[in-house]
């Protein structure tokens, strides 16, 4: 399928002077990228959001400019064959790309059918299709789901399905865009193991966009750091020492640095903003939790962690009054101002300009809007359409608008997904500020490291519910063997 062989190029994936510019953007998304990825390597693409990681993956897979128009200069050769200008459906047989949102890339209604979709398009014989589907589903550990409808899968199951669908294509080169972003710590660990096996046992070349590097150290990855569309650092990581030296997470908040547990205890003794008494909830026949009792006091930061599908978001929804509990009482004074930051920013952006977006929350004074925007590092953008902002900027805007009404209770659902270091630190600072002002905060997150750094109290929802000070809960989880749910695991790796 691929042609235009250029024998002067060396073996491997050669990217030469690649620049990509999207229409109506002044700054290129990628600028003069020169890189050689050799057969059998494990490469990690790191860097802040908007630095060009996804654009690089999309350009290599041919989706840019075929699906997303862009102006491209430079060249890409795979084992001497030019990839640029090829149709993505032709590149697919040699290079697979797993996108960031697993739900969005599923195109059939049944798990088995989804994995068979690619091999069927390659016109493989039926027996070969079946063998590949079986192998790919086993590889990611979801063979038992093969007859399930794709609409009933959890986030973690969908992520594994998306990976299996690409594995079944049989391509040697696999690119994965933040494959663990939506996963609970156990799920993330499983994906990292799969990535390692793909290279070691199957000899595939794996490139992964990932923020969490510690768990990958044992696979000795080569890390390429992008910033503003340029490669700013390349380094082979062989130990945690190498990683520390790279200081990729320099300035990240260290675990357990917030307050003493005693202080947290004091918070919860104050008049609670919301009180959950013996609450039970479930969907249909499935029970998510039973007899859950907790209260959120003024100035308290309570974080909810746990496996995918355990009911973390549901707990937020119950507190917000979007769901009615099956049993028990959720007691919240309706007059307490509420701030809610949804998982996806675009669900809560409604207006044509940022100025008008603040007006929804009662902020009409342009000077006040400017002050809030400066605080959110969105200076001078008041007249701009919020939809033209990057994901990271949209996240800052939604946190800023939620806080502009000075809520007494702030609810945040996975505010760190897909956010770079600077944004994470900014969101953490806003949470701290709100709590210092006396607001109660409930934070749902998979990132136990960040949770440990900010929380007065941690709630683990799972087969058993653990609740208490961060130290208490993480020690209890470690004692149960749930190491992936403890911050130390993500800091130092295994």
């Amino acid at each position: 399928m691929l042609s235009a062989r250029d024998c002067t190029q060396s073996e491997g994936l050669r990217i030469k002077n690649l620049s990509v510019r999207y229409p109506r953007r002044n700054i290129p998304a990628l600028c003069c990228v020169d890189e050689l990825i050799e057969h059998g390597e494990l490469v990690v693409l790191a860097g802040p959001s908007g630095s060009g990681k996804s654009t690089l993956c999309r350009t290599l897979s041919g989706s840019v400019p075929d699906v997303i128009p862009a102006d491209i200069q430079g060249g890409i050769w795979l084992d001497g064959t030019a990839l640029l200008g090829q149709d993505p459906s032709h590149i697919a047989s040699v290079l697979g790309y797993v996108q960031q949102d697993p739900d969005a890339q599923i195109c059939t209604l049944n798990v088995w059918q989804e994995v068979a979709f690619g091999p069927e398009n390659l016109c493989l014989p039926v027996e070969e299709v079946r063998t590949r589907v079986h192998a790919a589903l086993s590889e990611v550990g979801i063979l038992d789901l093969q007859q399930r409808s794709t609409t009933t899968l959890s986030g973690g199951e969908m992520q594994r399905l998306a990976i299996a669908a690409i594995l079944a294509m049989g391509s040697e080169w696999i690119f994965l865009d933040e494959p663990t972003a939506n996963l609970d710590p156990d799920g993330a660990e499983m994906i990292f193991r799969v990535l390692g096996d793909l290279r070691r046992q199957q000899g595939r070349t794996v490139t992964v966009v990932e923020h969490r590097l510690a768990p990958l150290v044992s696979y000795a990855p080569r890390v390429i750091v992008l910033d503003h569309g340029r490669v700013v650092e390349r380094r082979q990581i062989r130990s945690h020492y190498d990683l520390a030296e790279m200081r990729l997470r320099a300035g990240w908040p260290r675990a357990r640095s917030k307050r003493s547990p005693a202080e947290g205890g004091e918070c919860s003794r104050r008049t609670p903003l919301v009180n959950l008494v013996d609450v039970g909830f479930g969907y249909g026949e499935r029970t998510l939790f039973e007899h859950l009792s907790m209260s959120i006091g003024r100035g308290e930061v309570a974080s909810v962690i746990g496996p995918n599908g355990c009911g973390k978001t549901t707990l937020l929804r119950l507190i917000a009054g979007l769901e009615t509990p099956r049993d028990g009482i959720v007691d919240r004074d309706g007059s307490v101002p509420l701030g809610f930051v949804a998982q996806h920013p675009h669900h809560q952006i409604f207006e044509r300009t940022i100025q008008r977006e603040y007006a929804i929350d009662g902020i009409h004074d342009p000077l006040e809007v400017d002050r809030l925007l400066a605080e959110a590092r969105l200076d001078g953008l008041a007249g701009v359409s919020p939809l033209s902002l990057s994901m990271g900027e949209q996240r800052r805007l939604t946190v800023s608008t939620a806080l502009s009404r000075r809520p007494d209770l702030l609810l945040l659902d996975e505010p760190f997904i897909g956010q770079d270091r600077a944004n994470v630190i900014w969101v953490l600072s806003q949470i701290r500020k709100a709590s210092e002002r006396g607001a109660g905060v409930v934070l749902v997150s998979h990132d136990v490291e960040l949770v440990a750094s900010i929380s007065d109290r941690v709630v683990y929802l799972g087969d058993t519910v653990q609740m208490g000070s961060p130290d208490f809960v993480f020690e209890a989880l470690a004692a149960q063997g749930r190491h992936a749910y403890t911050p130390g695991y993500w800091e130092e790796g295994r």
Partner: protein
Amino acid sequence: MIKILAPSGRTTCASGPVSGLLFLGGCVSAVLVASGITVKGVVLVVVLAIAHRCAGSMAIFARKLRFVALFSLVLLVSQALSVHVGHVVLFGRITDQGLLLGAEMALRFLVILSSSLLFVAMTDPDELTHALIRAGIPYRFGFVLSLAVRFVPFFSQELARVREAQRLRGITFSYRRPSELRRAIYYTFVPVLVSGLVRVDAVTMSMKGRAFGANQRRTWSRPLRWTTTDTSLAILSAVLLAVSIVARRFQWI
């Protein structure tokens, strides 16, 4: 095999897309061909009986049918009131001819809608796509059907999330004022549309990234199956059609 997908995704009843289409065709032609209300009534009973057998989807089926039933009643009443031919039988105004015509029209409407709903509920869109492509539709177009079905729950979920976000931010609309209505539409459809467009890009990249469209043909690893349920449905369709032809020939009421 057709499957009725219960909300949980479990299969509760089965038959195939081809027999499903035959049955739909059989029911629709029977009510169009047959004269009078007897055959139409029988067809409706058959459709409802089959829907009832597949108990898992009956609740959704009944909910969807409620509006159709109401509309049929409106048809019946308006027809009865507007036809003045025949003997007056009710309220000094409604005639037997009017009632008969109204009932015929209502039944026809009910059967066409309920059998279509039953077909949609019972057919696995992936299998229907497969059957259509086998019948000669190019596979790139055939897949639109599967995708459309994938997108329906997505849009309803997005709509629900956007509405919740509005509620939590204290955004309320009074639908009586046109300016408010415009604002409501803008506030609701823009976020959903944005999600939709992002989604379309993602699914296109995902499909092309798995060699969709690279070749003129593709493999189908799931064979189209034909079971006794399919045979029974096909025979039933033929019988319904035959009875309706007889009914027309002998002008049954």
